[in-house]
């Protein structure tokens, strides 16, 4: 609970973190002694079968839930997060939803709007600022959520100059509802922002190629209880392409390992 | 008084105004003409702030809280206030009206014996009319009880409801004050079976009187006297020219409620009420005794409830007879 605990070379650290939902006989062990760390400016991808505890892990890191056991520490004034569901505020317009990311900063109304528009352009939703969430398609909503999370993690209050790494960004299947093209374009944008802002990213996906395309490290979780099975460092040069051979090769390797894991658990 | 002296926001030292309560009701005619004709304003010399109430409890609450100094009121709330405050809160300083209470029944009921098994309404459990009815029935050998059982079923309900239930036949009669008695007779073809006046010595019993807060009276003896002067003049006006007075009363009622009484009801009711400065102390104690007898009240010590000395001084100054508090 002191600064000593937070190593300057770690942005996020989980040490033997376990999480049990419910009590006693009905309790469900979602995470079992997971240890994991993200270095400042590192891009870590999390892979695992459906229901293995990825979202649970992100909630714990974001401080939305308490671990049953273990320690979690994060550096950076703020942790930005993109949920698995869009989690937009239905009473706000699309633009206002993105503007919420700047609320804490105390920007002027006009500035907030301008910056929100930039991020909406980024996710190809330029003309939709005045719509309400219910008027968007599923994928468009997801992109609004993406815009909000990116806006938050690149806002000045979440990364201060003194920090070695920038803010922490948690993303839970951010591109799940998007077509391959849009996805590819957004991969590039995300990579750019990550580098510019020196973000520390923890990224959940089901798409192994995507993980390899983006990550510095891919972490594989087993299911029920979620445990770290293996960590794959990705040492390919950037920029990478999702359809490049190297990516495909490493992805195939990880997929095999994942398949093994999933099948072992009767999935 | 040991307590309550701080209750008056106006301060009892030297009151700059008089706060007077009354009901927009024909039995409060003294106050109605007093205000309408400006008697209070004329005599008091300080501004008179009037408040009207639609029932006794609110008036007593206002007296208790020191929001008013004096009010016209019926005998029951006065007795309650006296009893609850153990004789500390109020005094009766003058009478205002007498009579005007009747047992009105349906056509076809001709004697007390016919009342057996019938439903008779009174304004409220344990009030003077309720007690009077029970005592009277008792004297006629008819049993009642406080829960509405017995030979005659007594149903306490608001007078307004009595008008309605008598018209629809839900009740067979009612022991009620004016103007309801007259309305029952005129509008619903009721028939008077008993005039309460006939049950009392000199055909007199109190229906309205004037009470004041004790600590106000103590601090403002002069104002009290002036109030009584105005009161006496109003009573005189009512008795000197009943026809004009009746009109004045109706004008006042209309101003306060937007609903004047019908002329025939006004005439009938006005005729049945006697306006007097005498609080008819004997009827109050008598009624309390009756209440004890029919089992509605624990014996109360009403000794000291009257403070008629200022009234008698005022009357003496005008050469009128003094009034006894027994």
């Amino acid at each position, binding site marked *: 609970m002191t600064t000593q605990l937070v190593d300057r070379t770690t942005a996020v650290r989980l040490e033997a973190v376990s999480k049990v939902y419910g009590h006693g006989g009905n309790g469900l062990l979602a995470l079992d002694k997971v240890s994991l760390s993200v270095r400042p400016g590192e891009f870590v991808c999390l892979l695992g079968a459906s229901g293995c505890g990825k979202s649970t892990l992100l*909630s714990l890191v*974001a*401080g*939305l839930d308490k671990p049953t056991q273990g320690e979690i520490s994060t550096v950076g004034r*703020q*942790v*930005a*997060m993109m*949920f698995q*569901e869009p*989690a*937009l*505020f*239905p*009473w*706000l317009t699309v633009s206002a939803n993105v503007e*919420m*990311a700047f*609320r*804490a900063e105390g920007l002027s109304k006009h500035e907030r709007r301008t910056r929100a528009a930039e991020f909406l352009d980024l996710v190809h939703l330029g003309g939709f600022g005045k719509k*309400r*969430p*219910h*008027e968007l398609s599923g994928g468009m909503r997801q992109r609004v959520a993406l815009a*909000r999370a990116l806006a*938050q993690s690149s806002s000045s*209050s979440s990364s201060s100059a003194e920090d070695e790494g920038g803010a922490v960004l948690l993303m839970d299947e951010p591109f799940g509802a998007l077509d391959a093209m849009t996805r590819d374009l957004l991969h590039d944008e995300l990579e750019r922002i990550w580098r510019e802002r020196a973000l520390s990213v923890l990224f959940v996906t089901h798409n192994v190629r995507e993980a390899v395309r983006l990550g510095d490290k891919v972490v594989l979780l087993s299911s029920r209880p979620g445990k770290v099975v293996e960590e794959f460092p990705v040492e390919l040069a950037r920029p990478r392409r999702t359809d490049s051979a190297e990516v495909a090769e490493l992805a195939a390797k990880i997929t095999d390992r994942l398949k093994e894991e999933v099948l072992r658990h009767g999935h | 008084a040991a307590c309550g002296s701080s209750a008056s*926001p106006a301060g009892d030292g030297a009151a700059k105004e008089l706060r007077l309560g009354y009901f927009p009701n024909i039995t409060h005619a003294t106050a109605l003409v007093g205000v309408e004709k400006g008697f209070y304003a004329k005599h008091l010399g300080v501004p008179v702030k*009037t*408040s*009207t*109430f*639609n029932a006794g*409890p*609110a008036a007593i*609450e*206002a007296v*208790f*809280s*020191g*929001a*008013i100094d004096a009010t016209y009121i019926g005998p029951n709330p006065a007795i309650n206030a006296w009893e609850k405050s153990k004789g500390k809160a109020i005094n009766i300083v003058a009478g205002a009206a007498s009579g005007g209470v009747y047992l009105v029944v349906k056509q076809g009921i001709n004697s007390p014996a016919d009342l057996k098994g019938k439903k008779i309404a009174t304004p409220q459990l344990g009030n003077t009319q309720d007690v009077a009815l029970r005592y009277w029935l008792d004297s006629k050998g008819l049993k009642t009880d406080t829960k509405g059982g017995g030979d005659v079923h007594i149903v306490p309900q*608001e*007078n*307004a409801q009595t*008008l*309605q239930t008598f*018209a*629809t036949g839900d009740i067979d009669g009612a022991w009620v004050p004016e103007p309801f008695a007259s*309305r029952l007779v005129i*509008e619903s073809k009721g028939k008077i079976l008993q005039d309460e006046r006939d049950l009392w010595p000199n055909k007199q019993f109190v229906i309205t009187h004037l009470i004041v807060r004790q600590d106000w009276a103590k601090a403002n003896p002069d104002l009290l006297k002036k109030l009584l002067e105005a009161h006496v003049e109003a009573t005189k006006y009512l008795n000197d020219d009943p026809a004009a007075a009746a009109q004045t009363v109706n004008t006042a009622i209309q*101003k*306060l*409620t*937007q*609903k004047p009484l019908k002329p025939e009801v006004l005439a009938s009711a006005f005729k049945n009420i006697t306006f007097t400065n005498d609080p008819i102390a004997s009827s109050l104690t008598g009624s309390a005794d009756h209440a004890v007898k029919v089992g509605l009240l624990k014996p109360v010590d009403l000794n000291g409830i009257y403070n008629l000395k200022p009234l008698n001084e005022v009357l003496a100054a005008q050469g009128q007879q003094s009034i006894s508090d027994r």
Partner: protein
Amino acid sequence: MAVDTHARQIAGLDALELAGDQRAGIASRVWARVWPMLTAIALVLVAWQLVVLSGRWPEYVFAGPITTFQDLGHRLGDPEFYQAVGTTMRRAVTGFALAVLVGLVVGAAVSRVKVLRAAFGALITGLQTMPSIAWFPFAILLFGLTESAITFVVILGAAPSIANGLITGVDYTPPLLLRAGHVLGFRRLQLYRHVILPASLPSFLAGLKQGWAFAWRSLMAGELLVIIAYQSSLGEQLAISRELSDSPGLIGTMIVILVIGIVIDMLFEAADSALRRRWGLNPV
């Protein structure tokens, strides 16, 4: 053979009542809202007249529409009537506004602070069930025979249900939105202002509507408490009509109260519709 044609689907859709014919002109849309109301009124009037004609009760016990509207017409011609309505509305609006304030503060505190909730949560409904007349003596003790006494009774009547509306709204705020707000860096008051309050708005609005009804009813009773000389009010008129068994007067006053209630409801309804439209919920 089971055949599902376009026609059947439209029928299914109408059952869902998700769609209105949105291309209709304004006139016809207004008409669509007005004619059922007019029909309802006409039906009530006819039924009422029929009951009176049946002769079950004499007119002075149960006045017919003709007598009532004649009486009401007279009153509508009298400036004093408008004064009375004005007085009552002024009191209602003042009292309600204060009650909203009190309800908001109490609701906010109780809904988010566990200790306060355990201490006072149940008390709020307890207070809500307390009839207005019980407060009268206290109102007079505290405020004397002033309008404040009436306002006091109105606030005690309305604030609990406004607070309860807010509490329900807070309790049913979707956890996902709370989490989103938390992640965006909102804490305590900010979380309240930016997430919980807007998310509770529908329920809060429902609470306001109920609160208005409580406020109004308390006011009708409270106006008898302090009758300010020569300042008539609706509550007083209602009581006097009843006191005098003045059937046309009573029914007339009831109609006035009903009309005011309906107008107020329309204001709430408009707010609610706007809210629903913004949230993307089925418009009426």
